[in-house]
């Protein structure tokens, strides 16, 4: 009891203090550097040049040697590789690829040209490495100074063995996070930087390294995207349409699958349903077949000349739909995904997505529901709450807390749900809107599929990068707002108590 009381009190005070704290943490970071430099002894000062010196002076010889080795390796890398690339970063190279006559062999050979794209990538890698090194350098300086303080106070200084041991103890998070972070830097951070850089170049079909050089063009590509009209390509028009459909789609896809999954799980779990395991398995069978197989299958299932249309024609369903106006009378088939009716295509995509997504959500919701705290449900039942009240007032809030982060991830994943849209519509859906076609876009495209087509079929990397950045900003804004709201008041610990 006492413990929770204290925690509560701390939580009340926290909001006021938090901002101050974060500011002072920021200032403290730099103040600590100053302190380390000014108050450090000779060994610490020597560490500014030979990074391991401070450790060696306190008898941490192995650590000292390792740290110095890292430093030496980095400097070597900087001189041999990073500086030559970085020096060309501002121009992205000046020597065009050419065939030159080599008098020694009497043949035409490729000259010593600049590959703009490699310069771009290597420079970014070098900058990231540089940033990492600067952070490490500062950290090292502070660490060396801390050891000096410990030595002065006569406190124990860890041996190398103890340092290693702390990596599974109070520094365990470093051990855990190092490898995943490296992977993330390679797969996510670097590509992101590369893409941002490309958005400011003229990288397109007319400018393809290594045959041509790239140039920086400033914000020109962004202007192209937001401009309306223009002679041949009106990106602005297509952009507006695709953004609104992307959001509508993401909302519908997330919402329907989430609710559908919970309802289905509740239905299977509810009293009176026999053979629960069998029902669950029947739905899970659809997950067992890989998504892209089912999507490619379903797309052929709903072709204009496909089996569903044949059956619909035979049973008179098409005539019925024509009568109530859902299918235009000029058509002889239901235009499920063909692009002759935008409404039908969008409807089908959402429905097929429900078919694909609900079993997954059902599986997850089943687990979450089983874990729901039963004592609250019990006491609510004793107080006379009915099943609906229990579901909406106790079960749903619990699901939302546990599933909330996943829901956001799902929404963002749906904004970028490449597979469903691409596999259902590629080579099948043809747009009737010339303005869309001019921008290489279709009404059912999400921003990502549009981007994919721009890169993969039209090599328009610069515009694709601009779209990529915008998608990214949208997703970040959305995530941060909802995530901050969810995390406010340290709710993550509510269930840890």
């Amino acid at each position: 009891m006492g413990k929770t009381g204290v925690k509560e009190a701390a939580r009340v005070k926290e909001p006021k203090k938090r901002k101050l704290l974060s500011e002072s943490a920021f200032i403290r970071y730099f103040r600590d550097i100053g302190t380390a430099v000014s108050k450090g002894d000779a060994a610490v000062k020597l560490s500014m040049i030979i990074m391991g010196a401070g450790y060696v002076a306190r008898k941490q010889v192995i650590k000292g040697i390792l740290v110095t080795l890292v430093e030496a390796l980095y400097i070597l890398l900087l001189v041999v590789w990073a500086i030559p690339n970085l020096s060309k970063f501002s121009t992205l190279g000046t020597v065009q690829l050419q065939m030159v006559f080599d008098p020694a062999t009497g043949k035409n050979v490729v000259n010593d040209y600049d590959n703009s794209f490699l310069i771009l990538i290597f420079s970014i890698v070098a900058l990231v490495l540089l940033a990492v090194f600067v952070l490490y350098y500062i950290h090292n300086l502070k660490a060396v100074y801390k050891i000096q303080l410990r030595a002065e106070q006569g406190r124990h200084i860890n041996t190398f063995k103890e340092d290693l041991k702390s990596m599974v103890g109070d520094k365990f998070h470093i051990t855990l996070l190092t490898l995943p972070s490296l992977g993330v830097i390679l797969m996510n951070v670097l590509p992101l930087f590369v893409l941002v850089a490309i958005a400011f170049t003229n990288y397109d079909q007319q400018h393809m390294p290594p045959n041509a050089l790239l140039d920086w063009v400033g914000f020109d590509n962004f202007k192209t995207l937001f401009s309306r009209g223009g002679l041949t390509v009106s990106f602005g028009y297509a952009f507006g349409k695709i953004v609104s459909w992307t959001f509508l789609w993401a909302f519908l896809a997330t919402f329907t699958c989430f609710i559908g999954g919970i309802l289905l799980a509740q239905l299977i779990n509810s009293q009176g349903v026999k053979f629960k395991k069998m029902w669950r398995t029947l739905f899970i069978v659809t997950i067992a077949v890989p998504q892209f197989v089912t999507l490619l299958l379903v797309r052929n299932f709903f072709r204009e000349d496909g089996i569903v249309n044949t059956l619909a024609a035979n049973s008179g369903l098409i005539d019925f739909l024509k009568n109530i106006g859902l299918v235009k009378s000029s058509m002889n088939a239901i235009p499920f995904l063909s692009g002759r009716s935008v409404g039908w295509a969008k409807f089908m995509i959402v429905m097929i997505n429900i078919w694909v997504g609900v079993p997954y959500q059902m599986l997850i919701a089943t687990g979450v529901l089983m874990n729901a705290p039963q004592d609250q449900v019990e006491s609510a039942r004793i107080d006379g709450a009915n099943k609906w009240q229990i579901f909406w007032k106790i079960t749903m809030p619990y699901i939302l807390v546990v599933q909330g982060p996943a829901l956001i991830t799902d929404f963002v994943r749906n904004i970028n749900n490449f597979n469903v849209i691409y596999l259902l519509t590629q080579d099948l859906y043809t747009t009737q809107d010339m303005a869309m076609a001019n921008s290489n876009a279709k009404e059912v495209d999400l921003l990502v599929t549009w981007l994919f087509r721009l890169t993969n079929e039209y090599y328009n990397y610069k515009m694709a990068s601009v779209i990529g950045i915008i998608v990214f900003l949208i997703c970040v804004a959305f995530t941060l707002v909802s995530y901050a709201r969810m995390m406010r008041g340290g709710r993550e610990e509510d269930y840890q108590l």
Partner: protein
Amino acid sequence: MSDTNVKETAEKKSSPKDIKVNTVEPKGMGVKKKRIVGAIVKNTVLAILAVIWLIPILWLFVSAFNVDPGINYAHFFPSKGWTFNNFIQLFHANSAVMYVRWFLNTLLIAFFSCIISTVFVLMVSYAFSCCRFEGRKGLMSLSMVINMFPGVLSMIAIYFIMKTIGLTESHVGMVVVYSAGSGLGYLIVKGFMDTIPASMREAAKMEGASELTVFLKVILPLCKPIVVYQIISSFLVPWGDFVFAKLMLGHDVKNFTIAIGLYGMLSKENLPRYFSQFCAGGILISIPISILFIIMQKYYVEGVTSGSTKG
């Protein structure tokens, strides 16, 4: 089944209290009748839903046994007769279809990327959920932001980076692409770990356990269901992805994963010749996945119910 057992015991526990309050205990025949009607309605709804969900799967199965190699536009069931030949054909490699090879390629990639991804996700989740260190929240928000950047958008950049390292047209490269950034997908597992009482970790630490021991011996066993979920989902990635595979693996049919291999079988030229084989191939890859699934599901249900001792 163990989950129903838990519910029954919960009901038994509550019944003495119910008698005291006497509000929700079923009374007489009316309630019983209502229950039976409810059960019938529920089972019927489930049956209808199950049929809707299974029709395309059924179509996949019957098409796989079709004598006609192309797609059947007129009839749901094969009209020219049934055959097992489509499956046998898959094992006779030709220049267009190298099913066994694709299968093994994908299995290998899935195996390694599944291990790496699961380990990465668990490591990150534990660090964020159970360790308390300076900058934890900042790092969490940062990784959220980075995770918002979809791989599809940066695939060209990824392709060029992999090409620079020399990992294109190689399966090692595919494993790297599928698993290297997986640490960012920590949210779900961390959410699960957040529901484990901190007191369990503290008790173990009181007895002198290191963080590593707590992670491996205390937290991991409790996370079994969500670990299983993680394993399933990361194992499924290489089977379903074709964008990266198509981009990275080049044009050599030998190197294909099952996804791009099967995708190619449905191209405009191949559709009349290979549709039935595509269906057969689709069923065959489903087999290892479903076997895995059945094993996993057992663990899933067991894990979740054993997790109820947490509270």
